[in-house]
């Protein structure tokens, strides 16, 4: 029989120690605040003012309007002229420009007949962020009739034309372009909740046990009747509370500083958070059975942290990844939590609607905790 009293004794002790460890205590608040500010302000995933070269073979008012419309998006700033697409390519290769805009001589006729694409954009794919921004730009509808307020038929034009693969791209992408800054905060902050929790939860729990091993207190602890499960649960509970606190901090700052909407239910969000936090805590416990020193704990935490950031859809769009990488990403708790938090906060989805994202978190928790328990021995060898 597990004893709630022993579990609580461990929890109580853990909280006391945490309260006295000023640095760790500061990190609980410090990590979310600093990360939010860094990701929210400093790392601006918006791409602006790309240097663009232009080949205007039409030389008409309409073609000049297109160039002006592109300039108005602020994504690209036409600053160089070239005489041929070949020359543009050369400029791209040398790095003189980031993008090239080619307007063919028969531009007006193409637009009239809806023979798209009417404008070609050459992109330097070296920087995926740049490429991504320009791909969005390429979905812009022809701006001749109403450059600032595209009408319904242009959306239709875009959808049956060859502009992009997304039928709604024309109208939507231009809106998105004008709201780019807002869009990035709206997608970054919800994901940031998960990123921060991944980092702190895995690290804190694995250190919580490894520290006992390093300081020698584990030798005494495991000669008491406390069971492995009790020890693990007792260690997890304080960090569940801490995780909820961090979630609240990011949410509060996100909505006040970056106007991130909270469209769904907060209860749903905290429940999703709970599932995600416990999954990460279980992983931290598993790491604590592998690491012998606190330094190794940190290394293991990074071992999971980097793939989580890179593959979860936080940095790069999930849809662009190869199938095998996507499968790998589906294992990571952060992938599912990103979808949950974005879904609940931005799209106003309910947890029930997103239950297929909760289930993998639950499975992850059970499997990983079982592994941790199987590995944790009340022994020193």
């Amino acid at each position, binding site marked *: 029989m597990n004893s709630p009293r022993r579990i*609580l004794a461990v929890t109580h002790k853990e909280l*006391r120690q945490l309260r006295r460890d000023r640095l760790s205590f500061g990190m609980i608040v410090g990590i979310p605040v600093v990360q939010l500010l860094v990701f929210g302000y400093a790392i601006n995933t918006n791409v602006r003012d790309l240097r663009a070269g232009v080949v205007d073979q039409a030389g008409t008012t309409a073609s000049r309007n297109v160039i002006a419309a592109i300039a108005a998006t602020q994504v690209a700033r036409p600053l160089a002229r070239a005489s041929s697409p070949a020359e543009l390519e050369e400029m791209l290769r040398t790095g003189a420009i980031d993008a090239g805009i080619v307007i063919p001589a028969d531009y007006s006729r193409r637009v009239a007949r809806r023979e798209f694409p009417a404008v070609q954009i050459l992109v330097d794919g070296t920087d995926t962020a740049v490429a991504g921004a320009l791909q969005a730009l390429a979905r812009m509808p022809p701006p001749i009739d109403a450059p600032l307020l595209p009408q319904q038929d242009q959306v239709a034009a875009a959808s049956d034309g060859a502009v992009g693969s997304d039928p709604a791209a024309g109208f939507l992408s231009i809106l998105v372009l004008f709201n780019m800054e807002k869009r990035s905060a709206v997608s970054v902050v919800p994901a940031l909740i998960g990123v921060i929790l991944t980092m702190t939860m895995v690290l804190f729990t694995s250190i919580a046990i490894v520290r006992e091993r390093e300081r020698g*207190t*584990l*030798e005494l602890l495991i000669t008491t*009747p406390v069971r492995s499960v009790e020890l693990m649960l007792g260690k997890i509970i304080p960090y569940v509370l801490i995780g909820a606190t961090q979630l609240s901090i990011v949410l509060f700052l996100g909505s006040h500083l970056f106007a991130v909407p909270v469209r769904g239910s907060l209860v749903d969000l905290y429940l999703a958070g709970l599932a995600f936090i416990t999954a990460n805590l279980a992983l931290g416990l598993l790491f604590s059975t592998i690491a012998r020193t606190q330094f190794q704990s940190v290394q293991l935490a990074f071992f999971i942290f980097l793939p989580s950031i890179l593959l979860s859809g936080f940095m790069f769009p999930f849809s662009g990844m190869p199938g095998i990488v996507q499968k790998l990403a589906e294992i990571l708790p952060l992938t599912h939590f990103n979808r949950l938090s974005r879904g609940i906060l931005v799209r106003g989805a309910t947890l029930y609607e997103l239950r297929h994202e909760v289930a993998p978190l639950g499975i992850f928790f059970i499997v990983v905790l079982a592994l941790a328990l199987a590995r944790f021995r009340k*022994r020193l060898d």
Partner: protein
Amino acid sequence: MSEPDYAIQTAGLTRSFGALVAVDHLTLDLPARRISGFLGPNGSGKSTTIRMLCGLVRPSAGSASVLGMDVRRHANEIRQRIGYMTQRFSLYEDLTVRENLDFLGEIRSLSRRRLRERIEELLETYALRPMADQRAGTLSGGQKQRLALAGAVLHRPDLLILDEPTSAVDPQSRREFWESLFDLCDQGTTVLVSTHFMDEAERCHELAILDRGMLAAFGAPERLMAGIDAATLVVWSDQQRRAAAILAASAEVKSVAQIGSALRVLVRRDLEAPCELLREVLSRAGLSARVEAVRPSLEDVFVAATGSLRSAARPREMP
């Protein structure tokens, strides 16, 4: 079930770490309600043996039973009934004295009221009341040791296992500490204590001398001293270092150690007139010396049993 006469019994108990055999076929019976000691130099396997008895390290071979229970199969039951004081301080330095005891009591499921009373009692017995609310990390060596002992006896264990409990404390605290051990023994607790202090070893009812993982000698300290397989002589000469070197090279001599201005020499027990023999050996080298036979000490037993400190040039390790 009647109380077994032996609190700890091992048979061929062995533990290796890779190629190193830390504990080598140890066979021992330690009586209940007595203080037994492990005496041995660094690395002789004291801690490893203790850890096997506590179920912290698994034996590679052989068997051990603690309070009548097999260490492999009943580690958890054993843990309920033993108190263990680790060689290194292993309470929480960032918790106060009282919080540490409180935590141990909760983890050992003592009833709330009993725990409160017991903590007060322990603060009194081990003179910890003045620092009850001080963090354990800021205690002095002796205070830490008393706290560790209080933590180990909190649940009134039948068997108390102490791994080098006095390595960080002064002689005065050491004496007081032993007084508490005798008190506990009086109340029926079996005590197993490891040490490399001779004076402590001498206080034990039973003593096991360990050397490189093997049992070198076992018995009551007086019996060990009486039954020592050597004669102890003390030598004074005007050139002690030279005399030591000459004696150490002699076949009859088991060991030579300088103690202050005298040399303490162990020779084979079967010699007819050991004093004369040593004088002769030295005079052949042109040294005049005074030689006297003395009663063997526990250190002599230790040296004779372990064969360490053979060279007089080596510094004395045992105080």
